[in-house]
């Protein structure tokens, strides 16, 4: 039915299966859209946020998704600037995942603000002192970059590519992609950092506050570093999931292992930095403001020392060791365990830097404020997940996302025409050229 749209040389599931999958995920999407409309039309009273929890689940999702989307800029940096050429086999997927993450982040922000119609005030009445202003500018610009990086991939669809205009447009875009990759890396450095700065500059909140360098608190650098470190983990985790779902090998192990190794060393260095930061904060910064570590991790029903352990040891030290050591890294199970722990670790870090910041009492006579999200918040948080899955499903089906797919999955029962098609289609499957 849609064979004409499917890239040459690869096999896709039957249409009914595809539509069934779309339908199931689409239902979740619609549920999320319903919740989103409720939030827009009835207001943020649909959430369980309150005056103590001005930031809650969504902002966590936002920060987490942006950190995980960091695979795009960092892989781009490695591929186009540093010249790790093997990564061309996974860069498409990294860009797609990045695009999904960043568009989701913007959507979440549009739901999260109390006056969505005034969202543009952040640009029009910009306050240069605000980390959020920096986030807004860099995030929007980087989203534009990701869009530009994603467009040529769309244009490579078999049918679109037949249109000379699109063909040439895509060709031209490929040619300048290094420029965008560099811009993207630069922008990412700042918005990842300023997201870290959002919490770190809160000098009224000893739990979040960090000293730093020039105008930036340490969290600025930690966030950038962690996004670069864990983003690829997420790309690899999603790739692994995609391989499991499609029951196909899509990317060669040498590519996976290269990115995993880089990620491992990044996580390792980041974790050392994070431990230094935590130590300084626990021993100098917080006590200077009159608070002990115990003030932040005891006296409430949820936030205990376990969260510190889970973030730094389980989500930092452990995956770093697995990915650095060649033996463990090459073991498929250990590798995936590391990806999983890494993704958990960075998500937990973002959780702590948003939710726990809000929960800890600051005034000595105040108490912990715990919160649980309303269904509307959960639904709108799942909305981008569903949207991401749908976009991946469609992109995977119709676009040549994985350049190595055809090679790794030769279509055996086909006749010689197929072989011909294969060789002919090879250039189509070539990834973007610098």
């Amino acid at each position, binding site marked *: 039915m849609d064979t004409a749209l499917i890239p040459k040389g690869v096999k896709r599931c039957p249409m009914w299966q595809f539509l069934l999958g779309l339908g199931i995920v689409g239902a979740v999407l619609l549920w999320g859209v319903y919740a989103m409309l409720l939030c827009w039309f009835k*207001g943020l009273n649909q959430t369980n946020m309150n005056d103590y929890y001005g930031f809650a689940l969504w902002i966590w999702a936002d920060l987490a998704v942006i950190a995980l989307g960091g695979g795009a800029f960092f892989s781009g940096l490695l591929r186009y600037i540093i010249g790790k050429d093997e990564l061309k086999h996974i860069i498409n997927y990294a860009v797609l995942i990045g695009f999904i993450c960043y568009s989701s982040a913007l959507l979440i922000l549009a739901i999260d*603000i109390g006056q969505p119609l005034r969202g543009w005030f952040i640009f029009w009445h910009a*306050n240069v002192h605000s980390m959020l202003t920096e986030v807004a500018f860099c995030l929007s610009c980087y989203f534009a970059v990701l869009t530009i990086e994603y467009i040529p991939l769309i244009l490579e669809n078999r049918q679109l590519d037949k249109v000379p205009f699109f063909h040439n447009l895509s060709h031209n875009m490929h040619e300048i992609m290094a420029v965008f990759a560099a811009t993207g890396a630069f922008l990412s450095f700042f918005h990842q950092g300023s997201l870290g700065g959002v919490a770190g500059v809160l000098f009224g909140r000893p739990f979040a506050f960090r000293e730093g360098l020039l105008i930036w608190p340490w969290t600025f650098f930690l966030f950038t570093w962690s996004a670069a470190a864990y983003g690829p983990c997420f790309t690899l985790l999603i790739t692994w999931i995609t391989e499991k779902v499609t029951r196909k090998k899509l990317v060669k192990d040498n590519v996976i292992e290269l990115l995993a190794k880089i990620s491992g060393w990044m996580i390792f260095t980041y974790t050392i930095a994070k431990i230094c930061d935590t130590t300084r904060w626990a021993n100098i910064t917080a006590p200077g403001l009159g608070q002990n570590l115990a003030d932040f991790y005891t006296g409430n029903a949820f936030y205990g020392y376990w969260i510190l352990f889970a973030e730094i040891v389980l989500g930092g030290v452990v995956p770093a060791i697995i990915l650095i050591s060649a033996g463990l890294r090459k073991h498929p199970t250990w590798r995936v365990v590391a990806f999983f722990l890494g993704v958990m670790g960075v998500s937990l870090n973002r959780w702590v830097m948003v939710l726990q910041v*809000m929960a800890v009492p600051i*005034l000595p006579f105040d108490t912990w404020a715990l919160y649980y999200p309303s269904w509307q918040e959960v639904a709108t948080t799942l909305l981008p997940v569903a949207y991401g899955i749908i976009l991946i499903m469609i992109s995977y089906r119709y676009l040549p996302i994985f350049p190595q797919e055809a090679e790794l999955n030769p279509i055996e029962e086909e006749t010689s025409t197929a072989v011909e098609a294969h060789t002919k289609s090879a250039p189509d499957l070539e990834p973007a050229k610098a």
Partner: protein
Amino acid sequence: MKHEQNHTTPMRYGMAIDLDKCTGCGACMTACMAENNVPFKEDESDKLVSITWMRIFELNNGKAFPDTDICYLPRPCQHCEGHGGHSPCVSVCPATATDYSQETGIVSQIYTRCFGCRYCMGACPYHARYFNWWDPVWPDGMEKYLSPNVSVRMRGVVEKCSFCFHRYQLAKNQVYLDGERKVPEADYQTACTQACPAGAIVFGDLNNPEHQVHQIVKPDSENGNKSRNPRAFRLLERLGTNTKVYYLSNREWVRRAGDNYLAHEKTGQVSKPHH
């Protein structure tokens, strides 16, 4: 009438609240709600979604019966000056919807500019900022008492105590018509100060030695505006928020409750602004 542009000292409006006098009666809260068109809902018992620009905290000394003691602490916006006007909330607002006035020291909130990102709420350690989670709705006919001097806030924006800024504007207009230069102490008083039946709140210009609040607080400009009055303290002084609301008490446990202290630290001794 002659109006000269004079380079007079900027003002720093602030408060001194005597916690030994405050009875926790709530008149200040209510005066504020009445003065500033603060909305209300049927159920206001969840204080995490209840807009009270002036909120009264109940403190206790943590001792068992019969040595228990309680103290009420009224908390308007502290109008933090931070370092050179970088109050916690002002510096974070991406849309410049809240600002530190170098003329008056008042931290403003411009509702029509705010787009409801709530970053300022996260930044304020005093929980002085409130979000309009709901549309403000008055029961039929009750909107008659709304004051035209303060705009009614729409859903989705943040609001907070303004030190009754509209009263300053009215006083300033009057002063201008009278050809004076400075707003006299008595002409600009906040609604909570005016209402307090215990006379616990004193409001005025901390920079003006003629104002009572200056005489009570005796701010030490060399030392981050720390008070020279041994009875006085500020909330979370060591965070460097440099607030303009001072509290007074003879009771040490009350003064100690104003800031976070490590066990070995002496009350009032470690309040050096942090940065």
